């Protein structure tokens, strides 16, 4: 069964149709790519899946359950989380506190437990701290654990954002242009990290990127958007040779290229 499924997903902003009748699936355990020229509607699809935008019409199913009318925190609780194209860390907090905070749902103690420091509080806090340290270790962030998030260099900020998302223990992670602004070396590291996320964290990945080499290198399945519409869907080789995709990418500079899938 596919983990995530969109059916005729549509989002309009006033007169603009940012996402137009898009149907695609993400298989459980896959690394799926979402590509398309600027303004194609990729980030909007992420905002719809994570509940930040309400859909205009259509459906989103996660493990067969409709999620398109739920609040973002509920969707996160069901196992979908994300990173942002323009990094959104808890800027003034340390690396450790960014991750510790995101792991909150691993504890269940109440406000009263916190105030009385009950054994439950102590035990669950210890557990959260342990998991936080483990994650920082796995993500190579231990060395900067006490640094302020905003003081990190760009590449590390991106990595921290992924680590914070993983602290939620998601079933599926959405990465919005994780390689943006990275040098080739960092991009290589990122590619292996994305494979590790799938294998070690048992997490399905849906990744947006402009970089064809990155997407083609790690994705088993690719969805191509253009002007809000789905242009193609399939394995990298098939997508790469698809004439409509080639036209969209090479001819995108020509204004108003009408492309039909």
């Amino acid at each position, binding site marked *: 069964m596919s983990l995530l499924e969109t059916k005729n997903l549509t989002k309009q902003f006033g007169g603009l149709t940012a996402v137009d009748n898009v149907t695609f699936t993400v298989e459980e355990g896959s690394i799926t790519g979402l590509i398309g020229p600027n303004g194609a509607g990729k980030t909007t699809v992420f905002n719809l899946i994570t509940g*930040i935008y309400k859909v205009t019409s259509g459906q989103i199913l996660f493990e067969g359950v409709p999620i398109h009318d739920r609040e973002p925190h509920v969707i996160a609780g069901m196992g979908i989380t994300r990173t942002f194209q323009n990094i*959104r860390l808890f*800027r003034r907090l340390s690396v450790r506190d960014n991750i510790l905070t995101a792991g909150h749902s691993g504890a269940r103690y109440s406000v009263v437990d*916190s105030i009385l*420091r009950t054994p439950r509080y102590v035990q669950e806090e210890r557990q959260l701290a342990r998991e936080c340290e483990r994650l920082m270790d796995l993500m190579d962030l231990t060395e900067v654990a006490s640094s302020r998030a905003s003081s990190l260099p760009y590449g590390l900020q991106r990595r921290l954002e992924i680590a914070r998302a993983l602290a939620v223990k998601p079933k599926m992670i959405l990465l919005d242009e994780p390689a943006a602004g990275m040098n080739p070396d960092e991009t290589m590291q990122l590619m292996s990290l994305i494979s590790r996320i799938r294998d070690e964290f048992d997490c399905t990945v849906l990744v947006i990127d402009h970089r064809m080499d990155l997407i083609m290198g790690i994705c088993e399945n690719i969805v191509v958007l253009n002007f809000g519409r789905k242009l193609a869907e399939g394995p990298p080789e098939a997508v790469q040779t698809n004439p409509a995709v080639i036209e969209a990418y090479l001819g995108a500079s020509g204004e108003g290229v009408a492309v039909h899938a």
Partner: protein
Amino acid sequence: MEWFYVKGILIQSGINLTAVLGLSLLTGFTGLFSFGHAGFMAVGGYAAVFAGMRLGLPYPLALLFGGLVAGIVSLPIGRLTLNLKGDYFCIATLGFGEAIRLILDNVQTFGGARGWPGIPVTTDLFNVAVVAIIGTFVMVRLVNSRHGRNMIAVREEELAARTVGIDAFKYKMLSLFISAMYAGVAGGLQGYYLGFLQPKMFSITKSTEFTIMVIFGGIGSITGTVFGTLLLTALPEVLRAFAIWRLVVYGAAVIFIMISRPEGLMGGKELSLAALRRLFGPRPKREVPS
């Protein structure tokens, strides 16, 4: 200075601290600005005195009752405005503060604008200290829990907080409720300290003063809140020598500190044994990312 005079300043500091601790949770830790906290203080004050004098509740229970009523009154305000953008909440609290004052001005059972006299003076240095210390203790523990961290996350980056599963609305409501409770308890302390209550004691100036104390001490620091409040409560008294120039000097002092330390006295840091050890102990190796 006479002890009587110093004691007065200390008691008023403790009362202010109780209110400002609550506001610190809301503004400093959750990132919501309120210009109506004097309103919650008024509600709590009148409710506590009502509970004590008309319902016959003993003093500690009357204070708690005042806090609870203030907390409950905050809920509809939060419900209506906290899922909107921040500014609506801020404006709503401003309106609330003024509305409460006008309502109390006109409710004759509580003495109207002339106030409610003849409240037995029960608040003394001892019980103010007890309340302020318990209040500080509870607040420190609260902000050092997952609940506190979730509030801080909402302050830092609400959208990201929601995508890691934090119910931002719920945590804003919780923060507002607790913060209104603190203000309510402070209101009760105030009424039972002065022996009378008057609506004009709870004007917007008072709300603003509280907010200044939070920011002065440093957003997101309980230590800062404590020092900021004690300092800013005592300062106008110390400045009495300046007579009519007192408030000008007070304003200048606040501005000077805010310019030289824009993040407030504590700049979001806490003073703790561990922090002191770090400060005076051997230097840890600098953490520089590769």
